[in-house]
């Protein structure tokens, strides 16, 4: 139940953040259908997930299966591997985007993307060194 509770809290936070993004975007009255689409997609996914978690929490058999799956070592190994690969892909895409944005003279957006990429790399390094010390 502990794992499920954590997942529910995370899902609620994501849902609230995406609803806030959706509302702010609507209030600003600018044409940004991509942001609206993104926010609504995340909201819908979060609600579907919450419904799924609720169903699991009400069924002891499903809950046991779910908790086993969450702690299962092969599942964790696969998650770690996919996370590492996703991180690499994101960084490559961000650097590609920065390059294209500079070519298109979109310097402000390029700076924002650079900051995001820099923060990601910094976070990676801090977590890496912390884990090296821990283990």
């Amino acid at each position, binding site marked *: 139940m502990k794992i499920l509770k954590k997942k529910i809290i995370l899902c609620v936070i994501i849902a609230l953040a995406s609803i806030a993004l959706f509302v702010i975007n609507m209030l600003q009255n600018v044409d940004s259908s991509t942001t609206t689409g993104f926010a609504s997609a995340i909201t819908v996914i979060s609600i579907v997930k919450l419904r799924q978690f609720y169903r699991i929490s009400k069924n002891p058999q499903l809950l046991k299966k779910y908790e*086993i799956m969450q702690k*299962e*070592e092969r599942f964790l190994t696969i998650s770690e591997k996919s996370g590492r690969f996703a991180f690499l892909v994101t960084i490559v895409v961000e650097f590609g985007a920065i390059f294209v944005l500079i070519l298109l003279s979109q310097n402000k957006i390029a700076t924002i993307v650079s900051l995001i990429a820099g923060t990601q790399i910094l976070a990676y390094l801090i977590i890496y060194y912390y884990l090296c010390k821990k283990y």
Partner: protein
Amino acid sequence: MRNKLEELRKERGIRQEELAEALEVSRQTIGSLENGRYNPSIILAFKIARYFGRPIEKIFIYEEE
């Protein structure tokens, strides 16, 4: 690394689902272990050895490539 998991499981006449439930892993993990696609952690290897009542090295055979 090779293993005799499938052989031992079949010897005992148990299904992958039953073994998975006893070891608290998914059926897919048992399948991956049997096919040699996935190597278990030392904890899972001990759990498997205890379940079958055999030493680890009799179930998992390490071969240098």
